[in-house]
């Protein structure tokens, strides 16, 4: 059963607005982002030398269990935190699982509601904007703390919004963009319009989607259209093995419609060929591994849109 989780977002590094947008887009791939707060600027206090944080909270409708969701949040942090080609890039995004349905969990790895929820103005202010239940907690904070959290207005907000739009429209090549979000974006796109050309440049981890004369942009109307349709599922087929991956014959092509179960390739390990099958019909939206290339455990090979 789908649950509504509230996820807190923060960024104080790089293009903070774009970081939040990317993260929200990836969160959307974990279910559906049903509401988002305004953006807030959080003035650092104490002796912190850090730049200002940009904060927001989103409501995420998801089928994932709390710990699985936490794992996905950490995975998004890792993906977006990494700079191109650098394993240990600084963290550009901070994601916190604040609330998960009515669940109460206390543990080493995860506590929901978040254990410091009641002390954090930069969380409570946007959270209360989405859910009135949290207003009393917010109002209990002292004025000094509340003053540190400033809602973006006017030109400041427009600046971030423009940056976000630019990112959404252009998807610049340097964007590090997770496979799940990429596949979902593509699948959404393909499900709406069959007569398009799709090109995926994998080496620099970027995608380019070209439709007849118009760049793809996701609008609120699109969002609603997708939401109204039957939920679209994208399966990522990952490698369980370490070995050399080979394409099947005929070689799979991105965009290919799979009528039924098809052998897309195989992994050769210890002299044994293990077939990689499409596990049913769908549309092959992404080929993530190269032909005759080494693959490791957990490495995505294909993304297939079902339904």
């Amino acid at each position, binding site marked *: 059963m789908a649950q509504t989780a509230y996820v807190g977002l923060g960024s104080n590094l790089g293009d903070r607005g774009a970081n939040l947008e990317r993260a929200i887009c990836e969160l959307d791939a974990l279910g559906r982002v049903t509401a988002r707060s305004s953006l807030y600027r959080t003035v650092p206090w104490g002796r912190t030398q850090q730049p200002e944080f940009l904060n927001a909270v989103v409501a995420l409708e998801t089928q994932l269990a709390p710990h699985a969701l936490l794992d996905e949040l950490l995975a998004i942090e890792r993906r977006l935190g990494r700079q191109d080609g650098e394993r240990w890039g600084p963290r550009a995004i901070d994601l916190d699982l604040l609330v998960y349905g009515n669940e109460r969990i206390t543990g080493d790895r995860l506590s929901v509601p978040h254990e410091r929820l009641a002390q954090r103005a930069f969380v409570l202010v946007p959270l209360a904007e989405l859910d009135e239940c949290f207003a009393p907690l917010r109002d209990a904070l002292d004025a000094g703390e509340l003053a540190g959290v400033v809602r973006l207005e006017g030109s400041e907000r427009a600046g971030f919004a423009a940056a976000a739009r630019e990112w959404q429209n252009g998807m610049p090549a340097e964007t590090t963009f997770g496979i799940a979000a990429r596949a979902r974006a593509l699948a959404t796109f393909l499900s709406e319009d069959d007569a398009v050309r799709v090109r995926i440049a994998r080496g620099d981890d970027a995608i380019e989607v070209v439709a007849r004369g118009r760049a793809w942009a996701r609008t609120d109307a699109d969002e609603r259209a997708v939401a109204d349709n039957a939920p679209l599922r994208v399966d990522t087929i990952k490698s369980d093995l*370490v070995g050399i991956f080979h394409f099947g014959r005929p070689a799979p092509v991105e965009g290919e419609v799979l009528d039924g179960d098809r052998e897309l390739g195989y992994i050769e390990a210890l002299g044994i060929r293990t077939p990689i099958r499409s596990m049913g019909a769908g549309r092959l939206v992404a080929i993530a591994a190269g032909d005759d290339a080494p693959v490791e*455990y*957990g490495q995505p090979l294909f993304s297939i849109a079902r339904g």
Partner: protein
Amino acid sequence: MIANRGEIALRINRACQELGVLTVAIFSEADRESLHVRQADEAFCVGPGPAGRSYLNIPNIISTALITNCDAVHPGYGFLAENARFAEICRDHGLTFIGPEPRVIALMGDKATAKRVLQQAGVATTPGTGVLASVDEARAAAEEIGYPILLKATAGGGGRGMRVVDDPSELARAYAGATAEAEASFKDGRVYVEKLIRSPRHIEVQVLGDGFGNLVHLGERDCSVQKPAHQKLIEETPASHLAPTLRESLFEMAIRACRSVGYTNAGTLEFLASGNDVYFMEMNTRIQVEHPVTEMVFNIDLVKEQIRVAAGEPLGYEQRDLGARGHAIECRINAEDPHNHFAPAAGTVSKLVFPGGPGIRVDTALYAGATIPPYYDSMIAKVVAYGDTREIAIARMERALRETMVEGVQTTIDLCLEILATKQFRQGRYDVEFLPQLLAAGTPAAAS
């Protein structure tokens, strides 16, 4: 290829780098951000967090070695280090397993058989049985040997699958517990009975052999400071208060044992010493956690020697060329709660300062911000102190531990400091009962 994780993976990587050998690391999904992944020349994910599906995933590990054109596999300690089948599979795929022959690993890995074979070679062993078929057999054997007895897993190590049985009424429960734990830890539930030697010291001998029949020992280590589950916490070399004749007889037995089975590469023979008696307990056919103390006093790099010997080089020195100098102590820093039965503490390390200065060596894979996954051993660092005398080494260790700061998880640092401060430790008059008694007596660390 380095088929391990954590500090020992770094240790092996360091030896390889100094030898100009390229390395391939393996890692689990939980270790993606680990230092060994970053420092190796190449790294491959072989499975998810739980070790059974990653660091013990033989097909993926071997496949990694093959597709990266590795020549040899260093297993470190734990995981697959004493898995004869793995060593055999390596060999069958043209990979050099850095350790003794699979035949020797299998022999020594079966503790009951190892005891029998070495007994025949003239090594003193504790009175005990072969593998038991049932609890009734255990009962009969225990009656014959006399309580108290020890139930031990034949595939065991690190205190797992081991139970002390003081009288017959406890036997059935202990037998069930030991077999279940052994089955879970080693996928081999077989156990045997051994006479419990009261308050022994745990003394072990480091050996090293090449493929040409050259065998040397590199002194002994006293590992008697053990937590209640027989897990070592502090080790030192040389062992204080070990009579010179007893020491010589240990060395002589160790070499004789190795010669009798055709031992090659690095290994450790563990003995129990009680009064003027020593008994062979078991042999570990791999590098040990506590190998650095030996390296410090012998000024030798055991991991490099392992690699050199495995590559077919002769040792190039004899016993008389070797000499130990000074005293070395190792303290294991574990992420666990000494106040709560050493429960492992997973978490993220927020602040981290390691000691330095003269005579101090730290082997660790930890860094500030690192997350300690819940799946693996809780040891996060080894602090080693060297000095010309035992007193100097202890003073250095105390100084080093006070410099150490690990925030975010609970550790054994304060407990180690308390142990170092006790009269028994200072005087070198401690045995394996020392730490459990200290904890039971309610030291400040255990009580607070």
